[in-house]
């Protein structure tokens, strides 16, 4: 099922992909072996002893004795590449104890969250925990009041002076929100700082961000008037987390899920990984969102075009989208999802979702038979009725898509992000092309 292109996308960066390819030669390897669950081999590095590399071929997990902090390391990439290219070079064997123990541990770990849950719940009910959550409640409320005052003061005095403090006027407030234990609001404040105050009509962009934040805080302060789900959504935006264990004990949705797109975004000192999935039978989208610090290992080895048979658990929400994958999952064949052919219908979906929850910041839309066109050096997607929507992608991403489509109609996954449209991937009946990377 896995292709060389998938392997390339599994690499943490271009350098690792290249180094892995260079190592994917038989002269570097000894003891190549395979089993239904794993492959393994010894790779001669610069040291005296070769590195022992193993790959879980059911879950695409890697382990290597090399000191690299990258994941997968170049040896892992090379081992899979060799396996994809020359599977007959791997002798069928029983797993050595070190590999079978590792696989066994992985399988046990996959079952662990459900067992851990009762203890977690008992923890949450403890007195200390209640005290902590009350303290946080107070802290967030105080922080929010201070933020509202700050925004109101800014509106009172006007924004004319802001360009002289470009990039820094929001920092103090963002830091205070972190102290107030409202990291979600702090992140929104940092986005405020990204508004280019040297662009035409920048005060409109800024007021759009600030007024939205203000309205979120208003919703929080009046949460007793909201439905429980709405309240929960607002709290998540402010920075309250839902534990993964809680999510994973919720309803599981089994389906064949196609990886539609994957994109890493740098957010402060961490990387956010957005994996967009589409369920074949229920015809619904899911977003798997992971955060990584430094060289932390990605949770899943999923790349666009891969399809898996898996159970997903959605975070409870007014419009469930964010989800967690319940492991284990098994690979399945590629399929081509259907989409909307009329942009008016897409706009209708957005209006519907905004009406349910106006603070929604990423809405995925599957479009059918649209064209990529360039009007006055700006890129657009056009439907059969000649309606166009402007894209905010980097030009390189658009050139890649145009090269692939040749100007012909294609299917597209478009994200509606805070009033802008971004093309994430395009596909036909046989392949999917990610705009990112």
């Amino acid at each position: 099922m896995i292709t060389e292109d998938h392997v390339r996308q599994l690499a943490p960066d271009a350098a690792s992909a290249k180094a892995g390819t260079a190592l994917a030669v038989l002269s570097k390897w000894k003891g190549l072996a395979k089993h239904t669950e794993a492959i393994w081999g010894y790779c001669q590095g610069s040291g005296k002893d070769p590195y022992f590399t193993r790959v879980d071929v059911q879950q695409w997990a890697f382990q290597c004795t090399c000191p690299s902090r990258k994941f997968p390391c170049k040896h892992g990439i090379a081992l899979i590449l060799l396996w994809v290219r020359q599977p007959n070079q791997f002798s069928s064997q029983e797993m050595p104890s070190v590999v079978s123990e590792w696989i066994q541990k992985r399988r046990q770990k996959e079952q662990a969250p459900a067992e851990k849950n009762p203890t977690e719940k008992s923890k949450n009910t403890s007195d200390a925990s209640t005290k902590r959550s009350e303290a946080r409640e107070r802290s967030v409320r105080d922080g929010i009041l201070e933020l509202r005052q700050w925004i109101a003061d800014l509106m009172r005095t006007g924004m004319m002076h802001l360009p002289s403090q470009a990039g820094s006027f929001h920092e103090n407030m963002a830091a205070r929100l972190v102290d107030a234990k409202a990291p979600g609001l702090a992140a929104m404040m940092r986005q405020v700082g990204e508004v280019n105050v040297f662009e035409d009509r920048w005060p409109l962009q800024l007021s759009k961000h600030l007024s939205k934040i203000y309205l979120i805080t208003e919703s929080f302060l009046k949460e007793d008037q909201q439905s429980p789900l709405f309240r929960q959504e607002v709290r998540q935006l402010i920075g309250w987390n839902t534990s993964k264990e809680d999510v994973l004990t919720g309803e599981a949705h089994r389906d064949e899920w196609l990886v539609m797109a994957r994109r890493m975004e740098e957010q402060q000192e961490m990387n956010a990984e957005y994996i967009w999935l589409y369920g074949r039978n229920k015809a619904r989208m899911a977003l798997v969102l992971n955060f990584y610090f430094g060289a932390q290992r990605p949770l899943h080895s999923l790349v666009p075009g891969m399809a898996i048979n898996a159970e997903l658990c959605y975070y409870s929400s007014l419009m469930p989208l964010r989800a967690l994958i319940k492991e284990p999952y098994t690979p399945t064949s590629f399929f081509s999802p259907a989409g909307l052919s009329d942009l008016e219908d897409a706009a209708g979906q957005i209006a519907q979702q905004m009406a349910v929850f106006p603070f929604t910041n990423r809405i995925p839309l599957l479009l059918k038979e649209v064209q990529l066109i360039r009007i006055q050096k700006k890129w657009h997607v056009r439907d059969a009725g000649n309606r166009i929507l402007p894209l905010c992608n980097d030009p390189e991403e658009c050139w890649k898509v145009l090269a692939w489509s040749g100007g012909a109609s294609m299917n597209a996954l478009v994200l509606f992000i805070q009033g802008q449209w971004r093309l994430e991937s395009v596909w036909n009946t046989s392949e999917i092309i990610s705009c990112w990377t």
Partner: protein
Amino acid sequence: MQTGNPTEEEILKTVQLGTSRYLPSIDQYPGGLRALLQQLPADDREDFFIKCCASYFAYAEAGITFSISNEEPFMAPQESKSYASASFSSLLSLLGNQQEEKPLLYFLIQTLHASGQLAPPQQVPALLSMAIMEREPWRQRFLEVCGERGKWLASLNAEWSMLIRSESVSEEDWKTGTKEQRLRFIKQLREEKPDEALQLLLTAFNTEPAAMRSELLDVLSDTLRESDIPFLEQQLQDKSVKVRDTAYALLRMIPTSTLVKRYAENLSQGLEFSETRDLTLQKQKRIRIKSFELQDEEVFRSGLQKISSEKGKADHVYWMEQLCCWVPPEWWEQHSSWSLEEVVQSLRKEKETVGLAHAMVTAAVLFESKHAAVVLSKAFPGKFPDLFDLLTLHECFIQWRHADESNKRSVLVYLLQRDADIQLWPAELMQEVLAWLEKSPYSISIAEYGMLALRMPDHFYAYLQSKVQDTDMRRYERAYFATRATQMMSVMERKKQIQTISNL
């Protein structure tokens, strides 16, 4: 966000001035929204304005309207060739533009090109970006593996458009085209109908500005003929120094021009050829530079420097060396009745005349004298890489073999870069090169080791393997060569992989 929207103008005005100086109004808000906002509870003016703002932006996002564009779509032309296999494209995407990867990338492009296959379309933008950084013939090869889609994309992107600049120009371009088109037209005409091109130049030349006259002359440089001499000599009277210099430079390239004959005449006046017998009664040939005054002003006008720029070198020796650069090497044989080998041998004997032998290298390159190149490269193995272009690959290998240690590296690097096509080298030479590198492994770069591996016959894999296994790690050179041997083995394997995939 569109401009000219009254609601947005109102918000803009408010946030710029501040609510303390400007009383915001909702009169400009859309009707339905305005009715709702009128009932909005608010603590104060700022609270009200911010909520109005947030409501408006949410309202605008939820009610997206689309523009209509009837612009003709740009559609890529059909491809007549087939696309490379997925494995090929995956390999291609992994080979970047880094120096170390370049040899394999070139080999992959060469193989794709030779097999008449195309790179997958999504990789075309990256290949076009690489192509604009390449020189010919690689630029063309990159473009060809991008197929019709590559040319189509290049026509849409200003950055890549240089790759498909139209080569065909018409007579109309000569009359009304840009300077570049006019030069291309005359060059094209010169290649196809040289006499017509010369005629056209004769009629139009004097009406052109000086800079253009010089560039028009330059167009002739690749296709110079004896019949061009009168036209070029005519241009020696041009009022522009630049045009005159170009005309002199071109005349210098024609062995039968009056200018070259004049150089030869002056050269013969300054030289003395003699033959004596030594004590063993063997003939000794000797060439001496006479001390003389060069009186020919035309020679100085043509570019010969009057004053020696080299310390310790007399002016008359300096003149002779310059003249020697501009006289065909064959002249020496005709003038002295000695063979060129004897001439070069004689010149090498004296400290004063060795400079003439070096100058003859320039003449050999200028007049593309293969015979002189062979003689000179034998006399100075590996010393003058300029001569290698006139030699066959085999002759260059001989150069490498006889070059001293200090020149061996430059000859080897030249050989690695000489041909665009990556071809296998003779096993005997490869064995010698590897034996030398084993002793001096730091002589070439990592990328050059990669280039060498691509030229290695298959059976050298076993040799490299033995070097990897048989390593005395205490000796740095051997350990380093073992590492490079591993690298070369890897390149050979990947090369084989490319070849296997291309044959599928």
